[in-house]
């Protein structure tokens, strides 16, 4: 289970970032006091437009960055005190994490598998399974530099799952994928959920979210506006679908902003 309590993340902005964001404030609260839980047997969706703070939340959970305030635990491990244990328990996928293009998919799996302390047999077994699942087998020995963006994305997913962790955190997992591969990914996430894993994804694509997520948080400017199942959210916002609900919340937010 993932527990996020009153998470806040404040970035210090450089002069360049300040002028880019058109602001005089030297700090930016990308995430501002949010709480939620994601459970086993569940796909939890963080929904929000670009800049809402989705990636920041997922980075904090994955120990890549430290929360400014608040507390996060993953399978009972605190992200700040026991970051090594947290990292053992998660698969994290985000588009800023890249693979060294000088190696082949096969070696990359072997390398990361070894870093997670897996034996050669287990690595081979997991590699076969994941390569088959995402259709990587045909280019397993071609240097990553020569692969297409979609192929690389598929490999990134496979690499992140090499150690078969109980928690899966995917930031915009279907971005940049063709519909067939995107479908393979969402199907696999559902399969993982059915196996009892905790799955969190972030997305700005409502159709993906409504199809696979069991519960959602809608995130706007670093704050969670609502959390619940699809029917709970539709009832609370008096909307007919998720997109409607989102825009209703969005216009409320804009009005508050003024």
């Amino acid at each position, binding site marked *: 289970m993932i527990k996020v309590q009153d998470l806040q993340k404040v970035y210090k902005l450089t002069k360049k970032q300040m002028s880019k964001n058109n602001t005089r404030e030297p700090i930016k609260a990308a995430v501002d006091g949010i709480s939620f839980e994601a459970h086993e047997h569940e796909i939890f969706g963080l929904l929000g437009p670009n800049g809402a703070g989705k990636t920041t939340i997922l980075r904090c959970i994955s120990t890549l*960055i430290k929360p400014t305030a608040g507390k996060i635990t993953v399978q009972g491990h605190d992200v700040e005190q026991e970051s*090594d244990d947290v*990292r053992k328990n998660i698969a994290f996928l985000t588009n800023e994490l890249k693979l060294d293009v000088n*190696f082949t998919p096969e070696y990359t799996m072997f*390398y990361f598998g070894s870093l997670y302390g897996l034996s050669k047999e287990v690595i081979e077994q997991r590699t076969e399974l994941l390569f088959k699942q995402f259709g990587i087998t045909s280019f397993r020995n071609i240097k990553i530099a020569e692969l297409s963006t979609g192929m690389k994305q598929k490999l990134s997913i496979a690499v992140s799952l090499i150690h078969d962790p109980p928690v899966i955190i995917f930031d915009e997992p279907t971005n940049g994928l063709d519909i067939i591969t995107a479908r393979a990914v969402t199907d696999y996430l559902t399969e993982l959920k059915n196996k009892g894993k905790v799955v969190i994804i972030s997305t700005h694509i409502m159709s993906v979210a409504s199809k696979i997520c069991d519960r959602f948080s809608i995130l706007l400017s670093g704050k969670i506006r609502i959390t619940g199942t699809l029917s709970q959210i539709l009832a609370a916002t008096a909307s007919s679908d998720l997109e409607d609900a989102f825009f209703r919340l969005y216009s409320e937010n804009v009005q508050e902003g003024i």
Partner: protein
Amino acid sequence: MSNLLIVIRKELKRVFDDRRLVFTTFILPAVSIALIYSIMGSMIGNMTSDIKSHVPSVYIQNAPADFQTILADDSLKERMELTTVPQGESLESVKSAIQDGTVDLLVVFPEDFSAEIEDYRSNRDVPVINTYYNTSEDYSRNARNILFEGIFKQYENMIIGERLGGSHYANAFDVDKGNTQSVIVDERKATGKGLSTLLPMLIVIFLFSGGMGIGMDTIAGEKERGTMATLLITPVKRETIAFGKIIGLGIVSIISAASSFLGVIISLPFSSVIFGSRTGSVNLGALNFGAAQYLQLSLIMLTLVGVFVGLIALTSIIAKNVKEAGTYVVPIYMLVMVSGFLNMFTTGTPTTVRYAIPVYGSVVAIKSLLEFELAWLNFGLCCLINVAATAMLIWVIKKMFNSEKIMFGI
């Protein structure tokens, strides 16, 4: 397999699988250094032997008979090509030939030179012999300053001797006349001395440059390309990653430096003059290093690699990308070169304090080692300082690895 080994192996695989990197890091240094040093060595060698074998063309006017007798001596006759300018003839054409470099020296005696010499008792100015030569021409300078300086001295002694009543009056002693064993050197020390001018500098430069390119790529490059973050979400400890990269880089630096030395050794048949050899060959065998010296040299180099790799790694971590890393590393490289240069021209026994200066101390130690004068205390001090500096760098690097500002630009 421990995580450290996994990281080191991957770092090395990255380098050795890449033909371009193998070529630029391990093959190019050997080839280019062998070529450059061979060419440089042959050019310097040719220059010196050419000056030695060149027979200077000397013009002379109004030479008195006794001076001509000196020049007619067998040993001098073959050392110059003498032309006499008739009395009263214009010297302009000879002078312009000196300017072109076709004639090396013109010696002009006053017409009444002999008479003035005879008349030495009257209180007048002594006669003046004029010489004309070209300082921008090596042959010309050599003819004037080495050859004729000696001849004039001999002639003056002869005249003074006659005034005193016999040539032996003006010749109080000879130096090394007939002594064929006058040069006594310990060939071992002589070889070491010759090498100690240039070699310490080359060692530090090769060690630093060997790790520079790859170091920037393996750290700043990985940050820039986003592959570092992928490594940071594995459970591997950050210090393990840092250590793995540093050790991998150290291995690469050492192999690359070894390649550079191979280049130097290949070039030795042509380049021995550069390394202070007078005989035309550097006899590395004559160095005859004992086990202790090899141990000392290896330990100095090993601990120095730690400092270099630490410096390269630290700057590469602070930098956002490879380009920025370059702008930080190059000034450090300059400093390393300067500490090498500084040491080239120092003589005398260095004080113990000097061994305690990071990097520079190692250059001093390697120099002393080649001169067979490195005391164990100074050796220990130099290594200790290197180890301490490396430890400090690693400590800072570890801090940097934990800083999200540094690792993710936040």
